[in-house]
Each structure stands twice: as C-alpha cells, then as structure tokens.
C-alpha cells in the first residue's frame, strides 16, 4: 500500500515538474540582492528583467515564455554556492551573474558540473575564465586589463611616484590591487601596501599609517561601501593624495557616502553608454521603468539578451549546443557587437578613465 502511494506521489511530482518545464524557460539571475552592495543586485535584476519583458512581449523564445529566477548571494561565497545549487535543481537553462568575483568563481564550478552556461555581467577577476570551464562567459572586462589601464594612467599621465595600495582581501579587491601593482612602471614606487576588512567602517588606523608614508596616490582595490568611507576619512585625517579605484566604486552610492571628498576621485570602467548609439533604446526604456540605469544595469541586460539570442539561434536549451553556439557567434548587443574568445572573455579591453566632478562620475 505504502509503495503504491509513493509511486503515485512521485509520478505526480514528475508530472508537475514536466508540465512546469514545457511551459516556460527559466533563467537564473544571481547577485547581491540584499546587504551593503544590494544596489548592484538591484541594477542587475532590473537590467535582466527588462530584457525578459521585452522578449516576452514579442512572444518569448522557442514559443515559450521566459521567467527570470532571481537569487540572492549576499556577496558571500558560501551563499553563492547554495544559490547555484538551488538554481540548478530549479532547472534553469542558464544563469546571468554572479556579480562579485568571490561568488562567481565558486558558483561557476557548480554550473559547470551541471553543464549550464553562465554569463557574468560584472565579475572582473581574471581567474573566472581561467579555470578551463568552456561554459563560463562574461560581458565585462578583466582586472588584468583594468589594472594595467589604471597603472599606465597613474605613472604615465599623472606622473605620480609614491603609491599606496589598499585592498579589501576579497577575490576582486585583492586581485585588482595585485594587477595594478604588477603593471606599475619603474618610475612608480609602492610606499604602502596594506588591507582592510570588508564591512568595517573605521579605517583611521590604516590611514594614519598611510599618511606617515606621504603617498602621492592611494589606489584602492575594493567596492564602494568601504571606498567611500576610506576617501572621506582620508580627507578628514588631512591626506591630500589622489584617490583611485576600479569599477567597484562606480555609481552614485560612492559619492553619497564620500560626500564632498569624492570630488576628483578616479576610477576605471567601461565607456560611457550615453555616447554609444546602440545603447540608446535600452537607456530610454530603463529610465521609463526604473529611472537612471546603474553602472552595471546594461551589462546584465546585454548578458540576458545574449543568452536568449543563443537559445533562439540554437533552437534549443540543451546546454552543450547552447554553449557551442555562444562560442561560435557574434552577438549584436546594446553595447555593440560582442564575440567571446575561447576562454569566454570579450575580445577587446573596454576600460577608460572616469573621474568624479561635481558629485558625478564623468568619463575623461
């Protein structure tokens, strides 16, 4: 009796998931949806969902509706692995994300084991695409490119010589700081090399130490919540050195936290999308729905579009075929044409220098 009951229950379970599968195509969207970096998660979700809405309005893909399954990794690697496993068992056909490199790298192993393609919109640590996983892609740049652009700018254009490097000991922050240091030319000297803890709010102890080394420039490898406080407290301590960081500080939140101390701060990031003609329709529809796009909104939008284009082009959601389609084709996106190299990176280096002027990031 019990066994018969189990069979009925199990077959009912299968029936349900089978009908579930046939109606909609589910795509995972994973990033820091809560916590101090939740603006990045919010931008990612909005970008990806905008793409899904547009596709659904024109009939979906393969005759099915698309559903974005949003998961929160809280920029915590342990959470990211749990989220990745949940997405895999949820039957997603691909994943957009994660955002933070320390999440993307461990999560990519889970997706790779399941054979699901993953397109990160914002993880810049080189390691992500150096693991030999053919199903891992990214639409943003890499920190070896970013670190070089920053180092060249500091040594060649600004001609500064005494460099202090601070990083937040995350995969992204430490990686970016290492790339920056390794690309410094012989005219630049590292006078301070230290780290802070992500989530901390008081950096005066480290900064007092930095001050005694009299640097011309402080380079920070990390993300805006700490970067904003760091530059604010540096100015309060009377440190007048130039402050520079990477794509992790882009967006209005950094300026909100740092206040007037943000003015003059440099960052490396992709080119201003306001000057990219292909991005114009995206900016308009995004503004209508959510307001001003964040720095990584368009990258999430583009990643989702590429995945859906690939499903449409390959006429299947079978992972192996999807992955080979992604490798073999050039995609026409809001950021221009994108083609992945054999590692899954975009071919060219997108980084340019930005600076905060009158409380806004502007491209130099």
């Amino acid at each position, binding site marked *: 009796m019990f066994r018969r009951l189990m069979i009925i229950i199990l077959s009912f379970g299968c029936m349900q998931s089978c009908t579930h599968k046939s109606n909609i195509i589910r795509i995972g969207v994973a990033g820091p*949806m*809560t*916590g*101090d*970096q*939740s*603006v990045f998660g*919010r931008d990612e979700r909005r970008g990806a969902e905008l793409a899904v809405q547009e596709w659904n309005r024109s009939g979906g893909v393969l005759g099915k509706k698309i559903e974005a399954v949003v998961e929160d990794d809280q920029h915590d690697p342990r959470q990211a692995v749990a989220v990745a496993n949940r997405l895999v068992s949820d039957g997603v056909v691909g994943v957009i994300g994660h955002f933070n490199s320390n999440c993307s790298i461990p999560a990519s192993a889970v997706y790779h084991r399941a054979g699901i393609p993953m397109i990160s919109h914002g993880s810049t640590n080189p390691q992500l695409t150096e693991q030999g996983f053919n199903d891992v892609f990214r639409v943003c740049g890499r920190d070896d490119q970013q670190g070089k652009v920053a180092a060249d700018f500091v040594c060649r254009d600004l001609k500064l010589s005494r460099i202090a490097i601070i990083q937040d*000991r995350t995969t992204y922050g430490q990686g970016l700081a290492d790339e920056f240091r390794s690309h410094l030319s012989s005219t630049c000297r590292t006078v301070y090399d*230290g*780290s*802070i*803890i992500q*989530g*901390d*709010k*008081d950096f*005066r*102890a*480290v900064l*007092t*130490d930095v*001050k*005694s080394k009299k640097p011309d420039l402080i380079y920070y490898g990390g993300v805006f*919540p700490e970067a*904003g*406080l760091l530059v*604010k407290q540096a100015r*309060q*301590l*009377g440190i007048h050195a130039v402050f520079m960081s990477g794509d992790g500080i882009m967006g209005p*939140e950094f300026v*909100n*936290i740092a*206040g007037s101390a943000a003015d003059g701060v440099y960052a490396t990031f992709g080119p201003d999308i306001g000057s990219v003609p292909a991005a114009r329709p995206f900016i308009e529809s995004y503004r209508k729905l959510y307001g001003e796009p964040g720095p990584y909104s368009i990258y999430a939008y583009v990643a989702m579009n590429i995945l859906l284009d690939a499903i449409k082009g390959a006429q299947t959601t079978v992972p192996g075929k999807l992955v080979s389609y992604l490798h073999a084709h050039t995609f026409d996106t809001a950021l221009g044409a994108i083609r992945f190299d054999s590692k899954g990176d975009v071919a060219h280096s997108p980084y340019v220098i930005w600076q905060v002027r009158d409380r806004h990031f502007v491209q130099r």
Partner: protein
Amino acid sequence: MRILIQQIINGLTTGSVYALIALGYTMVYGIIELINFAHGDIYMVGAYGGLIALTLLGTMSTALHLSGMGALLVGLMAGMLLAAAYGFTVEKLAYRPLRKASRLSLLITALGVSLFLENFVMIGQGASDKTYVSIGMLNRNFIVGGVSITMSQIVIFIAAFAIMLGLDLFINKTMTGRAMKAASQDPVTVQLVGINTDRIISLTFVIGSALAGAAGVLVGFYYGVINFSIGYLAGMKAFTAAVLGGIGDIGGAMVGGLVLGLLESLGAAYLSSEYKDAFAFIVLILLLLIRPSGLFGSSRS
C-alpha cells in the same frame, strides 16, 4: 609620536561609543543576569530613529533651518527615545514572561529578538546602506601639529562623557538610582522595602537602550552611513567591553569600552590591521585567564 597621538584619538572615539553601548549590557546583566544579545540591534534602531527624525524635519520645511547643534540634539533625542521605546517593549513582551523560566530560554529569546529586529528594520528601511544626514558643523576638521581631530570626534567625546556622568549621578544620587543599585544586589529582598522590581527592571532597559540609541546616532554622524546589520558587530564589541571591565559593573563598562577602542586602534596600527577584530578578543581571553571576573568585576556568589 604624531602617529601615536592620532591613533589614540581614533581609538578613544570608537572606545567612547563601545562604552555607551556596553553600559546597557552591563546594567541589564547586573539586574536580571541576562546577556541581552538584542542590545546591539537596539543601538541600530536608535541610529535609524535619529536619521528618520532628521529626514522628516528636513523635508517638512526647508525654511526651518536647524543650526548644527540643534540638528544634533534633535537627532540624539529622537534616537534615544525610539531606542528606549524599543527596549521597553522588548523587555515587556519578550523577557518579562520568561522571568521565572530558565536562563537558557531567556538567552535564546534574546537571540530571537535580535534576529527579529534586524529583519524588521531591513524590511521597513531597505537592505542597502543609508546615508546619514550630514551636518556641516560636524565635518569641520582641526589639524594641530599634524594631528587631525574632527568636530564629530569632539562631539562624541563630550556627548559620551556627559551621558556617562549623568548616569553616574543618577545612580548614586537619586532615590530611583539607588533602588536600581539595590535591586541589582538582591532583586527579591528589595521588594520588602517597597521597591517595585518590575518598574526598576523596565527603567533599566529604558536607560540602557537610550544610551545605545545615543551611540547609534553619534556613530551615524561619525561614519555617515548606517545599515540594518551594524548592530551585530557593535553589539559583540560592546559585550566584549562589558566583560573586559567586569560585567555588571558600570564603571567597568566605561573603562572597558575605552580600553577596547584603544587596543583595536593601536593593534591595527602597530601589529596588523587585518586582525583588528581578532586582536581585541585575544586580549579579552588573556585578561580573563588572569582575572576571570574582568578588570573591575567582583566575583559574585
């Protein structure tokens, strides 16, 4: 030398904040022997209270120009009031019904309250960082002989010491304060001399929470950002400070807070900034090995 003085100033600032929060821990422990793990979250609620009041004032009328000092006082008052209200309610709803239950149930309830408050604020106020109202006066910066001190640091010193002095006077000089002290020595016997223990316990929570709320607002002004999870680490630190000074001892909590702030700042400067948090706990463990009841704690029977 200049660096040392700077680090001491930095350390004393965070230390005063720890001391303010630690007082609430130690007062509550003194009277009902509960480690109130929700206390850190009361501090967080206080920070939000100050922010909400100042934002409301700011939007209500732009003509209503609060001077720097006025805004500071309004923020502090609002933060202290809201934190006190939360502390009062938490004691009444969560702890009082368990007064006769085992200590473990009370402790687990405290953890539950802490989680509840965090998630409650996260849902109500959003998960991301909130930028605190910036008061021009507080951002003023004095650099004397290469050592920098900001107005917000000075305000934190003054406010913390004024509040602590007021508390000390209240406890030692007023009738209610003395009743509190008596209740902490023997909560049952004091009822014989006509002291209402329930009222005294409520009052302890209200005062302790108001102090934490004040600390929350001061920290909001100092760092400029708050979020729903700031209570966790601050609570841990303040708890450490209270144990360091000898839990249950009010003077001990003040000294413990300042010592902890200094240890962190100097440890980060001269040993390793990455192990700043661990360093404070290592010192705590070492101290407890030598003096199990903390710096000023008396061994209770």
